[in-house]
């Protein structure tokens, strides 16, 4: 099956960005992983550098700016790089015309995922709608909403559960993030969560199956995983480990101290056809042209740098 990728959005420690289309009204350049990094608003079409709070300056220019090996930049200079570390502080006004009323309640997973979905749809020119659309939503994740789980059960574990928070409970399903996105963008297609897999393409593979099987024409799909907040103790998970003395706990492998696993969210807008599209899915392998695409970073780089745009 041939398919098109018409938009991409990402939230990673390297910053917040989208591509390959043009986003008007908001400048999303942000390349630092430092906490507190924020994007600054720009006027549509405005040039000149953008400065964020970490004093990183990125030139905002048409075309693709040079990027270090393994990185990719969108048309305004935002850097895409998968890696570990803290994510930028997110506010829904960065990518929505009207700030989302519940965005502040979202856990970090929902914030990252929702933001990347919004950016992907916006870059594809599909963020505005008047009638609901049968687009699907699929995400691959490993840790999911574990942070929300921990925060919620903190409220339920004392006083016999009398103070359990209904607001936190609503975000203790990894699919809630997809539900929020479906409401915001009027998406009525299939929506579900799959386990992440090496290469972080499990969500995209599942979405391509939906297209291939005729369960949708357009699916927004990707990957989302966040690391727990540092110093999250006493809610850090710990468990008994064989070979350790009784009472000595081992840190949960899902919460590595050095947070070596990549974190963030990357979503793409996938549409079935046309037959001339360079992207192809045979049910097992994803290829661009004749080259296999084995991981999310390679796919994203190809999309952001328009290596595999349909026009070629």
């Amino acid at each position: 099956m041939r398919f098109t990728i018409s938009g991409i959005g990402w939230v990673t420690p390297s910053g917040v960005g989208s591509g390959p289309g043009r986003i008007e009204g908001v400048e999303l350049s942000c390349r630092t992983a430092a906490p507190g990094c924020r994007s600054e608003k720009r006027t549509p079409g405005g040039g000149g550098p953008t400065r964020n709070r970490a004093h990183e300056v990125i030139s905002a220019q048409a075309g693709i700016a040079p990027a270090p090996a393994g990185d990719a930049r969108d048309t305004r200079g935002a850097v895409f790089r998968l890696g570990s570390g803290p994510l930028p502080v997110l506010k829904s006004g960065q990518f929505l015309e009207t700030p989302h009323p519940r965005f502040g309640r979202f856990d970090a997973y929902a914030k990252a995922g929702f933001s990347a979905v919004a950016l992907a749809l916006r870059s594809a020119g599909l963020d505005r709608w008047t009638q609901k659309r049968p687009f699907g939503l699929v995400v691959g994740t490993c840790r999911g909403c574990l942070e929300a789980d921990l925060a919620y059960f903190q409220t339920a574990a004392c006083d016999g559960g009398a103070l359990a928070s209904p607001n936190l409970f609503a975000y203790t399903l990894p699919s809630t993030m997809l539900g929020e996105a479906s409401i915001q963008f009027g998406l009525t297609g299939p929506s579900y969560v799959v386990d992440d897999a090496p290469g972080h393409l499990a969500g995209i593979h599942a979405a391509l199956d939906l297209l291939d099987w005729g369960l949708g024409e357009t699916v927004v799909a990707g990957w989302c995983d966040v690391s727990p907040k540092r110093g999250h103790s006493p809610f850090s998970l710990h468990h008994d480990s064989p070979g350790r003395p009784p009472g000595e706990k081992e840190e949960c492998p899902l919460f590595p101290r050095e947070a070596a696993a990549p974190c963030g969210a990357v979503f793409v807008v996938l549409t079935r056809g046309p037959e001339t599209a360079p992207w192809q899915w045979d049910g097992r392998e994803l290829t661009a042209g004749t080259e296999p695409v084995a991981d999310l970073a390679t796919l994203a780089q190809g999309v952001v740098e328009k290596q595999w745009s349909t026009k070629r």
Partner: protein
Amino acid sequence: MNAVHVVDIGTVTALGRGVDALWEGLRAGRTGLTPVRRFATDRYLSKIAGCIPALDAQRPASRLDGLVEMLFDGGGTIPADTMLITATTKAGIDQVEASVRSESTSLDRIHGGQVADFVAGRLGLTGPRQNIGAACASSTIALALAAARIEQGRCEAVLVCGLDLVSEFVFSGFSALHALSANACRPFDVERDGLLLGEGAAYLLLMSEQRCRQAGRPSLGRIAGWGIAADAHHITAPSRTGEGLILALRQALDRAHVTAAQIAAVNAHGTGSVYNDAMELVALGTLFDPLPPLHSIKGATGHTMGACGAIETIVGLRSLAAQCLPPTVGLRTPEPAGLGRVSARVQPISGDYLLTTNSGFGGINACLVLERGRP
């Protein structure tokens, strides 16, 4: 397109272990909803759930391990090359509870991938595996995706396994949302006032027609159609117009190439919550005139969340085979829209197709059209 056959089934619920225990319990109008013993319920709206007593004491391992053992112990043979799709909302969430309380625990069942690995290991499955999370429609969607995979010729055999626990985590959350009934689960009753939770697990082994024949397996029925759609309306409340469920129902009927008139009965989600049941009656009333006989099993098993779609598919297949619909336990005075269609007694049905539906948080809806097995 390949036909999708169900060749083996198994379940464990608060009504007992095995399909016969579930079916006979349902037919007799029994309920497995009893006072919760595994955690204190003093501060919660409800004190009742559909717990499996044998799992109450199981710690420090997740109760999920015991649930899986009860599900598969003594079950039929699953070919090693079978693809596995598990479906769960909160996996071994009891381990997260224990960890937050600094109790002795392991953390090897806290996400769906770990559960899929565990089930595959227990059964010696070497094929690909996946876990699906879609709130209370998880196992319905897992079945739909498994069926699509076989129909498209991408796979010959898929095992779908839905499972979820009654945990204080989920119990307290539904209580905080004021979604639990303090008294009883009464699906489609005018006095319904909330759901009650249950735990359980079910598996269905699906095969293509060719593989079914090669393996000499009898077909228990077919999954003939499926539909999945979102409301895009509200995170925790269903759309009052039932728009997402209507979309899913239409997809399922179209895919099965059957008309609404051919549907002999409906196994509804029927949680007993005010808004869900009203939404379902609106959606079903939009497609069916008149409504076929319908029922819900949640007054008997409790709402088994990610497992309910798989459990209810098994009940649907049994209903088609027996040409009767078990009673809706808890029902006293039906909603006017369901009058004469939903009953506290066994209802006879006549036909080859049954519709089963589930909906969940995030506004997701999924349904399956089941076709009666032929000897």
